[in-house]
């Protein structure tokens, strides 16, 4: 094409950090289908293997935004990186984004009450611990009464659980399903409770929001488009899902892709619950207000905005 048409302006390019898990699948579908280009966007999806490295990259300005959670967002702000949530991508309902607390194979644990004093593998000061605390409370157990062991990386937590070195561990899907398939017992499951504990959010650096508002808006539209593509024809993206969401071979025939809701803003009370937990954990001196964490202007007003 001519130089004028091929030159994608700086404002239209976005760098997005994400961990290749099922939460982010619509982005990969959009990439595969060329939806970004069609929308006149230049989006680079940068894969990370740990939330820690992803957040460091955002902090250093190497990426414009990332798919994260509310705890990470608040901590980034606390650490001096101005970021804001622009939309929820997963976890609009409790059924989305499954986390489960599992007991190791062969352990004599069948009810939450038996977890008292046992070792529970989590990732400290993250959404994982928040979910763990929430689940334990739901199960009627004081989170302080279990022995938390920090195992930040999920695959390692899985291996230690299966190897019997942890009595229990909190795992997201598909690892939770895999552990269950290998003999671990699900004690608590966040899709089976009434509270909505885990939300996946799309966040951007504030300067990116300021400079690239149209691009981010388009991105959200593309995301919505990809989500509906998946909903309409899940089997067409099966292979891509197995690959991009890193579904273990044992589960490839049984594990189903989750539902993806269209972009929307997180609920006030969910954000507040996270803030209260963080203050109680002394991760924050004072809770952030909803407006400090969320930028309400980017989600398409036609969307499911509550």
């Amino acid at each position, binding site marked *: 094409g001519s130089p004028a048409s091929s030159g994608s302006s700086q404002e239209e390019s976005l760098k997005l*950090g994400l961990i*290749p898990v099922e939460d982010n699948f619509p982005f990969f579908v959009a990439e595969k289908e060329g939806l970004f280009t069609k929308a006149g966007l230049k989006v680079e999806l*940068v*894969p*990370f*293997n*740990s939330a*820690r*490295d*992803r957040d*460091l*990259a955002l*902090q*250093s*300005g*190497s*990426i414009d935004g990332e798919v994260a959670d509310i705890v990470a967002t608040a901590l980034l702000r606390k650490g001096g990186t101005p970021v804001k949530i622009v939309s929820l991508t997963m976890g609009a309902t409790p059924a989305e984004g499954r986390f489960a607390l599992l007991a190791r194979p062969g352990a004599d644990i069948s009810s939450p009450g038996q977890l008292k004093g046992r070792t529970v593998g989590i990732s400290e000061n993250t959404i994982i611990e928040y979910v763990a605390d929430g689940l334990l409370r739901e199960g009627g157990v004081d989170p302080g009464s279990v022995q938390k062991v920090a195992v930040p990386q*999920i*695959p390692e937590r*899985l*291996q230690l659980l*299966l*190897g019997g070195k942890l009595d229990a561990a909190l795992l997201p899907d598909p*690892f939770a399903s*895999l552990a269950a398939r290998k003999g671990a017992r699900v004690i608590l499951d966040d899709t089976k409770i009434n509270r909505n504990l885990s939300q996946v959010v799309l966040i951007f650096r504030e300067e990116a929001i300021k400079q690239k508002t149209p691009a981010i808006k388009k991105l959200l539209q593309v995301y919505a488009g990809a989500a509906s593509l998946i909903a309409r024809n899940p089997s067409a993206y099966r292979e891509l899902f197995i690959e991009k969401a*890193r*579904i*273990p*071979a*044992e589960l490839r025939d049984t594990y189903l892709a989750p539902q993806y809701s269209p972009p929307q803003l997180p609920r006030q009370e969910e954000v507040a619950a996270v803030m209260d937990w963080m203050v109680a954990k002394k991760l924050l001196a004072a809770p952030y207000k909803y407006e400090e964490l969320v930028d309400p202007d980017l989600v398409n007003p036609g969307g499911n905005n509550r």
Partner: protein
Amino acid sequence: MPFKHKIVAYLGSILFLFGCWWLLARGINNPGLPEPRLALQGLARFWPELARHLYFSVYRVVVSLALALLLAVPLGLWAGRNRAVDSFLAPMVYLLYPVPKVALLPVAMVLLGIGDGAKMLIIFLVIFNQILITTRDAARKIPDQLLLSVASLGAGKASLFRQVILPACLPDIITASRVSLGSAISVLFLSETIAGNSGLGYFILDGLFRADYGAMFAGILTMAGMGLVLYILLHLFEYLLCPWER
């Protein structure tokens, strides 16, 4: 030792290693450590893809090793022959070397982003220190007689470095390269698991995340093989560069 015997010895010990691995895998019977067979199958299954990752990894290791040698060797020689430089440099090295490289990750990312640059910087920083320490210690040990004798021929500082200090330290520098090559590959693994989707480190971690231990160990095998080949190349360099030691 004749060349033929060497090859036999190499093959023998590789077989021995596989044997140990097999026994260990059987013994502990944990999916995290699969039998060699599974790894070899993984190798066959993923070969073309693995080769692509291998290419990136080799590139990163070799470039950072070369850069580290280029900078650390002269500095080490200098510090080894100059007490004042050393007592300024040593505490810096001793303080910086143990600093966990994650601490440097933000700096690396700000300066170089998340591409090859940052990965190679992290590798570079680790082995720079190793080569610096070894070279400095080697330069310190050079007998004064040798230096005196060449100085008495009227050699200036520069000639002394080129004619005496550098060749005297060459064997130790090669040893340092051996040690650093291993470290470089370890750090490579770590830096490739941070971000991006290329390199053997990524491949291995990807296998771990998918709980596909066959793929994971195929990656580990490839990494080990890459190490072995690079080591053999280093031996070749030594043979060529140090003819007086044959």
